């Protein structure tokens, strides 16, 4: 198991390097730092001196890959590629355009992000699986049909409308919770409730249908038929034989949710004013702060790879037949 984990982590390295090369070429090769400087400084009539100053402030005034002006190993390290790209592997993300340290900012904002994302993940999974099991229990009845219709309708509504609708109904009309904002500690709960409910609802249609398909597929298997034939009550068949055996595809699907959580958190955090990583990214996109966007791409990919690894480990917990070697 340990050997497997180490090998998987080593596999992750080339992927992270690939991600880094992609972002590096996007940000520095497709456009030269001069282009970016000119756009950031706004007008067409930018003096070369202003561009040089802008680049120097942000450390973009070095050559891309090779610095002939420096001596020894510094020929490779005194370059944009090393400073901006390789440094990320040491979790050194440099400074944002407003001069703040990105790594520190990320540490500060991780808490609020997790406070929303973790409940969304857990509750979303629980709600979708419960509904799917309910639909399977009533399979081939009008209730099942109505449930599927509801799921398709729910997944046809843009997430934006869930957020706007939720804010309008719960926060404005009923005035149960504040519309947006955040507070530290236990006071955060009142700000988190609505975003969590909205996110869970927004994802419920698609995931319920997905789990229903998985359960129904499991349902046609021989061992389920045997279990019913020997007289087990339907409830036990569902929980012991269908749910347990469907855990592997459920876990696989759960990892697919992780990038979706990221996307969701962008919107949710921006709408509800939660000072997490999502709203940080949105602000950076609006302010065209490329250093922050680059750092977030790196972190997002790293999280995804960690998620994949966690799935593999959870497979062994869910199914004793699986051994990681």
């Amino acid at each position, binding site marked *: 198991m340990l050997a497997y984990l180490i090998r998987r982590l080593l596999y992750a390295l*080339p*992927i992270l390097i*690939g*991600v880094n090369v*992609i*972002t590096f070429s*996007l*940000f520095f090769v*497709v*456009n030269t730092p001069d*282009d*970016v400087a*000119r*756009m950031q400084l706004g007008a067409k009539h930018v003096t070369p001196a202003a561009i040089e100053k802008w680049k120097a402030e942000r450390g973009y005034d070095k050559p891309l890959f090779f610095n002939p002006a420096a001596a020894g190993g510094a020929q490779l390290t005194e370059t944009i590629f090393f400073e901006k790209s390789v440094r990320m592997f040491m979790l050194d993300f440099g400074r944002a355009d407003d001069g703040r340290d990105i790594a520190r900012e990320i540490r500060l904002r991780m808490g609020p992000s997790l406070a929303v994302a973790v409940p969304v993940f857990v509750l979303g999974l629980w709600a979708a699986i419960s509904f799917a099991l309910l639909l399977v229990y009533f399979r081939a009845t009008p209730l099942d049909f109505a449930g599927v219709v509801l799921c*398709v*309708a729910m*997944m*046809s*509504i*843009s*997430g*934006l*409308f869930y957020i*706007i609708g939720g*804010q*309008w109904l719960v926060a*404005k009309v009923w005035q149960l919770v504040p519309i947006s904002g955040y507070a530290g500690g236990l006071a955060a709960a009142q700000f988190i409730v609505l975003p969590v409910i909205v996110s869970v609802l927004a994802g419920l249609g698609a995931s319920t249908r997905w789990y229903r*398909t998985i359960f*129904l*597929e499991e349902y*046609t298997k021989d061992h389920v038929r045997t279990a019913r034939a020997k007289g087990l009550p339907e409830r036990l068949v569902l929980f012991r034989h269908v749910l347990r055996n469907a855990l592997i595809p459920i876990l696989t699907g759960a990892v697919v949710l992780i*990038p979706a959580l*990221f*996307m969701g958190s*962008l*919107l949710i955090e*921006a709408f509800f004013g939660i000072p997490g990583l999502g709203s940080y*990214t*949105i602000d950076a*996109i*609006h302010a*065209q702060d*490329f250093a922050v*966007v*680059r750092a*977030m*791409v790196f972190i*997002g*990919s790293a999280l*995804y*790879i960690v998620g994949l690894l966690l799935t593999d480990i959870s497979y062994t917990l869910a199914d004793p037949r699986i051994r990681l070697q």
Partner: protein
Amino acid sequence: MMFKPVLLWSDALFFLLIAVALASVFYIRRDEHLRLGWRKVGQSRVGMAAATLLLVFVGIALLDSLHYRERLPGPQATYAVEVRSALDALLGGLRSGAEKTYSAPLATHSFAKETLDHDAGRDFPRLRHGGAHLGASAEGWGADVVRRIVQGLGIGLIVWLGLWLAGAPLRRAAPHLAWDAVFVTLLALCLTAGAVALLAQGYHVLGTDKVGQDVLYLTLKSIRTGLLIGTLTTLIMLPAAVFLGLLAGYAGGWIDDLIQYLYTTLNSIPGVLLIAAAVLMMQVVIDTNPEWFATAAERADARFLALCAILGITSWTGLCRLLRGEALKLREMEYVQAARALGVSHARILARHVLPNVMHIVMIAIVMDFSGLVLAEAVLSYVGIGVDPTTISFGTMINSARMELAREPMVWWSLAAAFVFMFALVLAANLFADAVRDAFDPRAVK
């Protein structure tokens, strides 16, 4: 010439896509399995109703893709800078009948009070176009609206009867298809369109937005953006996904490793962030090279295509992985082995023996991706990394409308219009996708 036709890149690709779709109809007619599958789709009532609605949307998008520049009056042949479409010409009244600011659906008076010049008080001013035929006092509004609705329903019914009669040969030619669902959908559409068309001649049926533009016009224009995002992205990513997926599965070895590495890497970047990064950089390219584009429409179009390409890059990995797995399986099939033994070349095996056997997966993927892409466009445009802010789309509409719910009294019609149209488009796409999947997926649970 009274106008100069303009062919934007997205128009050209959209026409190409329609040509490809028509060509694939001929391909499907020849192929026994695909024909059977599509016949199953045709027999599904829900699938056919959804397809009808989608075709109507495609028709609107097609009209909106015939772009031209109007000739300016004068002896020389100079043309307006503004690029319009055939849909704009059809909806001329809606487009030009702008008000000053918000007005409610079917309203005759403005939504906000204004200081009127003839007396000292503040009152709701009369709209310039909404109900203008009723005169200054706007009397008889209710009767006029009811009369228009009834007349519109009547016209809609007549049009529908015409369609029904015109469709008789089709029904005779293919009696087993679910034509009843098609014509019920058409009836609903004709009645709605008739009533809306007559009302739209005198009023703003869905109200006006902050700068007084007709919301109905905006929603109709948004359809093209949504539809094109969903289809062009697929068109752009499909060749790469199919080719690389089949190659990886069929060739194996280091080619497989390389392609797997490629899509794992792309997949591990959260889609939004890759899109954000790429769109930001494309914007720099577009801004630093203004000489590439003759009109603002072309510039917006370039950004639109860039968005499609980037969405394609982030969305081909799923299909590629599926196809790789399928090709791995097919490679070991006896008929492929037999073809190898007979000395058929790899390229020919891929084209003749492997590709036709994964066609159903490709088709399911195309229709399943569509709705997700339409929804993604709205979110991305909202975040500011979607289409150009000047392009009319559901995302830009929602973006400009979202603060309006906080107003007192509430401005709800922009959001409601975007919601209804988007919901109809995505729901139809989802239902159609389900029908296609049920017909083609051998593992589909009944």
